[in-house]
């Protein structure tokens, strides 16, 4: 099953996401002031910044939950914002999204949650759908939890189920909105590693919204720093701590441990 999936993902020239001059304001309050960037296949790209800097709004603009006032979101050159309903639906079905609160359906079991996109969007037989959902659950280390309800599992497990549901349709693009929120540091690292492994394994274009320093240092192959709706810095985790952007340095060294390590 894994080999079959990987064979579907060989073409690295597709699965590119480009955002161009994204602007969004709510009333008089400008949230995004013209953000541009490119996200490549096989990379785990991070959008970082403090609370209220527009990270989640940018993500929602990219996945079509909020319409930007200006700008373009291109998926392999296809303009998502200006697309008609059919093309938007087609692009959406190429996305997997892990929401901040996991967004699992309360009335369905873990297995049913993961199988749900297949039930709704494919003509596969029940046996095939169940096999695919179980494979995804096993991939995130929850092969035994299929019969449990979302209310019966921990926050970290919910995130894993959310990841399994996001990849069950073999997406080209994976979006994760603060995958570590509410998790302990050890579980956070496991979730980060899982996202990074899946990105690499299936050559998905992954965009992660986070303000978690561990995530930035662990999986930040490409990092975009947002500050008050502007992109102030772009790079990778190897040069994250060497920037000359005061706002970024202030953000990074807010952590006492990192500050002391840097001073030493």
């Amino acid at each position, binding site marked *: 099953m894994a080999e079959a999936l990987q064979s579907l993902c060989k073409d690295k020239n597709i699965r590119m996401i480009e955002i161009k001059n994204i602007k969004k304001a709510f009333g008089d309050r400008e949230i995004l002031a013209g953000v541009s960037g490119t996200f490549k296949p096989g990379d785990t790209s991070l959008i970082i910044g403090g609370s209220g800097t527009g990270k989640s709004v940018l993500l929602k603009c990219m996945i079509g939950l909020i319409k930007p006032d200006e700008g373009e979101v291109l998926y392999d050159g296809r303009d998502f914002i200006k697309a008609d309903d059919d093309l938007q639906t*087609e692009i959406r079905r190429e996305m997997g999204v892990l929401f*901040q*609160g996991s967004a699992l359906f*309360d009335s369905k079991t873990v297995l049913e949650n993961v199988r749900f996109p297949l039930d*709704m969007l494919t003509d596969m037989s029940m046996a095939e759908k169940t096999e695919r959902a179980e494979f995804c659950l096993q991939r995130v280390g929850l092969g035994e939890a299929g019969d449990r309800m979302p209310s019966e599992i921990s926050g970290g497990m919910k995130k894993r189920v959310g990841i399994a549901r996001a990849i069950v349709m073999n997406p080209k693009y994976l979006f994760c909105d603060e995958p570590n929120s509410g998790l302990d540091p050890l579980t956070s690292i496991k979730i980060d590693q899982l996202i990074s492994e899946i990105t690499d394994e299936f050559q998905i274009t992954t965009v992660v919204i986070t303000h978690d320093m561990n995530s930035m240092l662990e999986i930040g192959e490409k990092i975009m720093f947002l500050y008050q709706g502007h992109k102030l810095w772009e790079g990778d985790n190897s040069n994250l701590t060497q920037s000359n952007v005061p706002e970024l340095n202030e953000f990074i060294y807010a952590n006492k441990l990192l500050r002391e390590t840097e001073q030493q």
Partner: protein
Amino acid sequence: MSQIGKYFIFLGSLFRNREKLSVYLKLVLDECISIGVNSVFIVAIVSTFIGAVTCVQTAFNLVSPLIPMYIISVIVRDSTILELAPTITSVVLSGKVGSNIAGQLGTMRITEQIDALEVMGINSTSYLVLPKVIAAMLMFPLLVILAGFLSILGGYLAGTLSGIISPDDYVYGLRSDFNSFSVTFALIKSVVFAFLISSISSFQGYFTSGGALEVGQSSTTAVTKSCISVLIADYLLAQLLL
């Protein structure tokens, strides 16, 4: 006015990008149980007592010896079929069903479950709301028929057991000058009320934003607006059809 415009756009979105028919069949059946079967108890209790009270109060007001006793059951029958069964049942259901729908959709909204459906490429309004509206329009007429039957039965029990009216007089009154259009009118009302309650409550729940407090407020608003819309529609239908 913008809310009304938004409501009509919301209704239009129910029929766009629909899913497979088999998906709706299962969802409609589930909603029929939630909206219809689970409301039988409250409808039965309310309608039985309303019929009983109508019978007793009508008898209390009939002080003239010139008016025959069977008029009591004529009044119970007509007031039940024309007004009490469809309208009171719908007002009660707007509390039970309306708050349930608004609460459910509101919770799904604030926990990003609706967003999850949207990004999967599923039309969340069509998937979540259309089955509720269809199920309500199927189940409300059945509940109104049940309410009408139990209300008249309640009147019979209260009237005969307390000695206000004899069983023969009561049954005679029920059959006297019966206009079958009353039943048609009651069923038309029930379908219209079902549509209003389910769609307005869904609209309120679907556009909830914030947290638990706002979900509660959406439920309350849904019930209030549903009740008002039912009463306005009740008047308009009476003017139009009677």
